[in-house]
């Protein structure tokens, strides 16, 4: 059994944990580099990227994460996409950024514009929940787009990283998580 880490410095950690528990994955909530060293893959939850960025630095996780995101399977949601983006239009990228994309924090607008919509993923229609979501404005050659809304990429993949600007953990279906587990740990 592979161990899935969930970065536990701020955000909807509990929602992610309950989905992976339902899928019978073994999980560790990651607060420091010791926790991270036990993990075979890592989930970046939703939350505020600015708070997480600061707490990653404070918790001495920057170097360990830089190493980890290069090779281990990563599932990044919402704020996680911002933390891993090489270019952020309205903020400074992290040292461990790897995704060859440009994003804008809250690119879809403030909370009154947060929305639920359907996306097409591998031929299926799925519910997707967007909460003050970042918008991906540019993608590099290494990036594959797996789903779009209004022609904007919302679910992408690059090497070992699956990234969604929406929150699969807030929907009942766990299609995206199953895809990630099967592809990288199957």
């Amino acid at each position, binding site marked *: 059994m592979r161990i899935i880490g969930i970065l536990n410095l701020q955000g909807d950690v509990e929602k992610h944990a309950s989905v992976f528990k339902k899928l019978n994955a073994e999980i560790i909530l990651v607060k420091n580099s010791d926790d991270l060293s036990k993990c075979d893959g890592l989930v970046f939850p939703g939350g505020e990227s*600015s*708070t997480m960025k600061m707490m990653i630095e*404070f918790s001495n996780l920057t170097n360990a994460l830089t190493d980890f995101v290069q090779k281990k399977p990563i599932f990044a949601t919402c704020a996680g996409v911002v933390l891993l983006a090489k270019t952020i239009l309205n903020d400074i990228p992290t040292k461990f950024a790897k995704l060859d994309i440009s994003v804008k924090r809250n690119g879809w607008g403030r*909370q009154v514009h*947060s*929305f*639920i919509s359907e996306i097409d993923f591998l031929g299926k229609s799925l519910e997707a929940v967007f909460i003050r979501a970042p918008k991906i404005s540019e993608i590099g050659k290494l990036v594959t787009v797996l789903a779009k809304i209004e022609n904007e990429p919302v679910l992408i993949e690059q090497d070992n990283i699956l990234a969604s600007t929406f929150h699969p953990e807030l929907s009942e279906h766990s299609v995206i998580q199953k895809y990630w587990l099967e592809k990288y740990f199957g």
Partner: protein
Amino acid sequence: MNKKTGNFEVKLGLAEMLKGGVIMDVTNAEQAKIAEDAGAVAVMALERVPADIRKDGGVARMSDPKMIQEIQKMVKIPVMAKCRIGHFAEAQILESLEVDFIDESEVLTPADEANHIDKHPFKVPFVCGARNLGEALRRIGEGAALIRTKGEAGSGNIVEAVRHMRQLNAEIRQLTVMDHEELMAAAKNMGAPFSIVEQVAKAGKLPVPNFAAGGIATPADAALMMQLGAETVFVGSGIFKSEDPAVRANAIVKATAHFNDPKIVAEVSSGLQSAMAGLELSEIPEEERLAKRGW
């Protein structure tokens, strides 16, 4: 593509994203920037922090929209704002400004002594204070997507927030061991909607996130409330009424993220300047207790 906005799931979604963080009271754009740079997950825009409202007296109302907009321009984190209990016109104004959360708050002077706002029709999520489970479930019944303890705002004294959190948790635990017949009597005694009582009895927790507010002034206060089951903390007067707002704000953020690690809480508590002075609860006359506002 059909985009649904403003439904309860989306409101709850933002409350989930705020977990494990610190929401800070700010009274202008400059303070909002300090809060964001210190690691706040959101700011609460208000005209005067509760300690000053308490001191100055008079009617405390919703903030000037201009000030709220200046704060919205300054920061990228969510901006919350307070309206008076029952003052749905203030809430409508805050919604039109696109604040991210509305706090129907006992810190402001209540506009309606009988009714709280019907929060369901709004697209913006609401947070409401509670002293016990009945109060929390009535607010959820009205459409609140987030509950916080009332504590005693502006007191710098954690005792009321602790009381309210313990009360809420004890009542939730009691529900979980009741049989189905007893739940209706519990709902009657609490004055709470039966369907939500059933839901809480089954899940062993509120159907919305549960945060702490009212009297948090130190990193240790934040760690205490988080260990008592709060999922995030609101800090009001505690930051900008202290001698070192930026450093203290950042220390409280760190203590909240690592609330289970006393070594880290000790480290961030070291060498801080004086916290806000604070009030012994017996110094606050019953009629001046903010927690008594609302029902």
